[in-house]
């Protein structure tokens, strides 16, 4: 079933204040909404009762100690795992029973904690794989090299180069992606995810392994991408400077439960968060 066949629901009502949607997004329907989302592996509940709603141009962060279930939530959103509880609404459409490919086509793009580029393929081919669904020609057209094949391929190539130039990577288009320096590989992963034309971009530890200068640049780029493409971005990150610097809303996860949600200031002074990270203070 193609994603388009799913029933569109009515736009949701403005979110209550507890959902911390930035003011500019208040009267728009959320791009993603999770209701009581959860997954059990055998008897172990990895994530439970996860509720969020994100505005269409919101930058949110997901933090928490190692093993708290952050990446699991990304895997649930992209249907790498099928949730055992709850509902995910993407632009008001229930993604139940969708495959990862269909969710990607419906508008969720993502990067990976450990880089998963197609290392044997060139930089531009990686981006073209991201554009796959938007390139419009059939098998016959490509075998018989009809004019449509060339026009579509040319269009796709131009689009790919345009996306690469956001990160000043257009001149590396024909390099093998596996031989790029680490930072460039991370950037290419973001470009490839953007190529899938997402309305929600999931970044899994985008700053991992970067030096402070590169992180600074990445922060600017994330905000720039949001402004350019007008999309929502949800990121997992351990670098507090990045999270506190650009996220408008932060969710804190511990043992698969959302223990706090709020603006960076609220999160920094939240006793439950401090406890999760540093342990309980000894009573005098």
């Amino acid at each position, binding site marked *: 079933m193609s994603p388009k066949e799913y029933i569109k629901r009515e736009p949701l009502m403005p979110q209550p204040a507890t959902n911390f949607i930035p003011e500019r997004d208040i009267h728009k329907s959320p791009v993603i909404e999770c209701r009581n989302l959860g997954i059990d592996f055998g008897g172990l509940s990895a994530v439970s009762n996860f509720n969020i709603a994100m505005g269409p141009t919101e930058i949110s962060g997901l933090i928490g100690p190692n093993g708290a279930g952050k990446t699991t939530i990304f895997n649930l959103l992209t249907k790498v795992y099928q949730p055992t509880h709850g509902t995910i609404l993407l632009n008001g459409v229930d993604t139940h029973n969708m*495959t990862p*490919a269909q969710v990607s086509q419906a508008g969720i793009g993502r990067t990976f904690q450990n880089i998963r580029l*197609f290392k044997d*393929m060139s930089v531009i081919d990686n981006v073209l*794989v991201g554009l*796959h669904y938007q*390139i419009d020609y059939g098998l016959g057209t490509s075998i018989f090299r009809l004019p449509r094949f060339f026009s579509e391929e040319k269009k796709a190539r131009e689009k790919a180069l345009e996306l690469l130039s956001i990160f000043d990577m257009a001149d590396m288009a024909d390099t093998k992606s596996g031989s790029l320096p680490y930072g460039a590989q991370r950037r290419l992963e973001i470009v490839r*995810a953007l190529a*899938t034309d997402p309305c929600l971009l999931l970044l899994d530890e985008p700053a991992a392994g970067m030096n402070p200068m590169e992180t600074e640049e990445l922060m600017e780029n994330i905000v720039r991408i949001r402004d350019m493409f007008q999309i929502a971005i949800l990121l997992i990150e351990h670098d507090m400077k990045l999270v506190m610097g650009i996220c408008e809303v932060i969710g804190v996860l511990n043992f698969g439960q959302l223990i706090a949600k709020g603006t960076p200031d609220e999160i920094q002074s939240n006793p439950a968060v401090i406890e999760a990270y540093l342990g309980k203070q000894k009573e005098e």
Partner: protein
Amino acid sequence: MSFLNYLVSGLSLGSIYAIIALGYTMVYGIAKMLNFAHGDVIMVGSYVCFFAMMRFELPPVIGVLLAVLVCTILGIIIEKLAYKPLRSAPSLAVLITAIGVSYFLQNSALLLWTSNPKVFNSIVGKGSVNIGALSISYVTLLTVGICVVIMIVLTTFINTTKMGKAMRAVSEDKGAAQLMGIDVNKTISMTFAIGSGLAAIAGVLLCSAYPTLMPTTGSMPGIKAFTAAVFGGIGSIPGAFLGGILLGVIENFAKAYISTEFSDAIVFGVLIIVLLVKPAGLLGKQVNEKV
């Protein structure tokens, strides 16, 4: 001069192996499975072409096209019914299933067409081109020519079209490809279709050069082509091409200069030596297992 003659017939045999090996290597690269039924798809293709030409007296071109069509559909059906339900099963289960499908096809052919060998008329005339003492038959010319064309078309397809790129992406990282919006099932299905279509062409060429057609016709060339694919580095398309050609030439020289009976033993001996020295095959990539 006889050396050149042996070389040419080795190239011809090698081209057939190469075309079959392409099917093995593509399927392995993308679905990470060994499709041992591939050899029997060759046999089915040959029978289809045989009946089209002999029984219905259709022109050879139509016969070949029909064989390609039937095998393409057969490949897709085999994948859908036998392999797709095992997508997440251990590889041993898939391997056994593939052997099962192979026997199923052979025995179906036995029931349908009996074990009597059929004499396959070459799809091109019996003539040959003579250059000095070197004589090259039309079948040889056609076989080598088709092999080169297939190689060029396939390489172009894989490198320049969006389906080709999707295939490369799936073969490298199925999970990541899926998350980029690529329908993995459709891509695997297409790979089987292409591989089986090529098998039909190989079958017709094989039977044009060696005109006996039986239900077991496909199994030995199938195994040899699989060897060729491993020889060249399984998963690699140029590897299959190189492995196939080399295997054909080695086999023919072994037959000519050493012993006809031992030729197969020599071929597999060479494979063993190559794998001892280069475990990933000639053009295969060394996979570093993460510890």
